[in-house]
């Protein structure tokens, strides 16, 4: 090692700012290796992400995730029919889950006793008159896609609740009815199903 007092003089950088000068000391090796590592990684990353497309892009990942969501939705709908909805409505766990959802989301319009009534915007769900069809699948369609009457009716709930919770809350409503009684009830409009396009009023 050279004389500690003078060994740096030749490393002094020429520029001067406000009388402050700077030594050209070497950076610590661990720092340099971290830096070089980051540079190399960024090149690999850039290449594999943008050119080689070895890594998945965000777009593909989102598309894949959305496809999975859609798949789950279709799978859930696939099982939905008048029969399966009736089965669900006789399952105590399902109905209890539906009741909890109903108390949070639905009472505001349909009332705690499901009868709606004065001051409440919803329709009565326990009388013998149905607005969009006297079938479980019609009720399910209205909850999922919203009322065909987009101007004043109920909105779609599927984004908020997801298909499973929709079937639970429908099961809760159906638990107040029987198959025979619902078939005998009147409907104000032709029964709709999940594929019925919305109508403007």
């Amino acid at each position, binding site marked *: 090692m050279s004389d*500690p007092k003078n060994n740096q003089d030749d490393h002094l950088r020429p520029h001067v700012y406000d009388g402050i000068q700077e030594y050209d000391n070497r950076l*610590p090796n661990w720092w*340099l290796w971290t830096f070089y590592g980051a540079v190399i990684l960024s090149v690999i990353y850039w290449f594999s992400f943008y050119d080689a497309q070895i890594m998945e892009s965000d777009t593909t990942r989102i598309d894949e995730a959305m496809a999975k969501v859609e798949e789950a939705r279709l799978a859930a709908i696939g099982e939905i029919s008048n029969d399966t909805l009736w089965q669900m409505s006789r399952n105590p766990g399902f109905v209890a889950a539906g009741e909890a959802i109903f108390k*949070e989301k639905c009472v505001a319009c349909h009332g705690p006793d499901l009868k709606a009534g004065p001051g409440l915007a919803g329709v009565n769900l326990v009388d013998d008159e149905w607005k969009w069809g006297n079938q479980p699948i019609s009720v399910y369609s209205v909850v999922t896609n919203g009322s065909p009457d987009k101007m*004043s009716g109920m909105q779609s709930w599927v984004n908020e609740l997801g298909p499973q919770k929709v079937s639970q809350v429908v099961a809760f409503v159906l638990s107040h009815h029987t198959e025979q009684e619902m078939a005998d009830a009147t409907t104000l409009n032709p029964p709709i199903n999940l594929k019925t396009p919305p109508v403007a009023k």
Partner: protein
Amino acid sequence: MKAKSKLPNLDTVTTINEDGSRFNIHPADVRGRFTRWRRIAALLLIGVYILLPWIPVNGYPAVFLDVLHRRFHLFGITLAAQDLWLLFFFLSGMAFLLFYITAFLGRVWCGWACPQTVFLEHVFRRIERFIEGDAPARRKLDAAPMTPPKLFKRVLKHGIFLILATIIAHIFLSYFISIPQLWEWIRTSPVEHWKAFFFIIITTLLLYGNFAWFREQLCIVICPYGRFQSALIDDDTLNVAYDYGRGNPPGSVKNPEAGDCIDCRRCVQVCPTGIDIRQGLQLECIGCANCMDACDEIMDKVKRPRGLIRYASERNLEGFKTRLLRPRSILYTGLLFLGIGVAGFAFSTVDKAVAMATRMPGAPFYVTDTHIRNQYQIRLINKDSRDLSFSVSIQANGLTVPVESSGFAGAEILSPMEEKNNTFVVQVPREAYEGPFALKILVEAEPGDIELEREVEFLGPDPELLRRQSQANP
């Protein structure tokens, strides 16, 4: 070019060699009053770090940052994700406090309370000292070829370091998950909670790397606080300082021309960052007071007064009294009290309940034959440790149109930490509607007399259009 020993200078960092490689520091043993008090403070602090997640306050641990459920328990106050804005006042308050302390006492935090110093000086370096011996012995061991005894010492040391790093990582994790949950995870297979396991592995390796190898590099190169120093301190700040007036020129005890410093280099040998404090205040100095104890011991031996290296300000060294009242101290004190005041006010607004009102996704309004309808979602959170009963209503005072609301017929009871997002429907008769207006939603929670008011906009179609349509189809 690897030097075995080095003379510190002001132009380079001792721990970084000219070729960029690391120069390992082996601080010599030091004894004295500051070392003793620092050790006591460190043990107390370690006790506090370990115990905070165990001490219950208001039914929850004193510090429990429950990231999973987004509930943050701090000494009896519970915060939800919705209270995040408080973080700004908390952090700025902490920054002001640090500025304040630094302006008066310099890097007292670094030397006495920083977890890096606490664990490094009082845990890891103690173990190293126990296994590998004192500073000359450690230097000799570093230089020696790898033999079975050296290998044994190294494996033993790093093994214990790894175990300690694991323990510290678990203490760290216990701030974020409950103690029973942590215990459950410790006893079950890592596969069942691989994310937490991965977190522990990474944290352990970082802690181990830091305390076994990186050490003072963190303080010198990475920690931003050290870099702020020159902006935070002034001539009246207390630092670990060498009294150059009294000590210089250094020389032998017998030399009558020399100052009080006998040039024994004890202060250099004990320094954990490898500086010579006699060259003045430096960026690397973490204010650990090792050199103060070392010098006092020597001064006692040569029968000279203690305090050649002591807590002193630059002005003090020039022979004047340290000024406590100065523009910087007045400004920082003002800022500190402002910060405490604002943070105190902000935290006093935190209720045991959270209420938020937002418009429901979908159509902004609905028009029926009789009414205009708006739908909102009211998010309620109970942050109390007992059940809270919520009621939600419309503040009718000041409204010119009749409104009806539904969704909260009775009280909504939420258990502790429960969160609900309920539908709230507001209707205005069609003929009474005169255009959009502001609506105040009143949320009350009992017990505790909590009242929260949230304002939303009631929207609808152009009233003129509505009237014409009504006339067209009566």
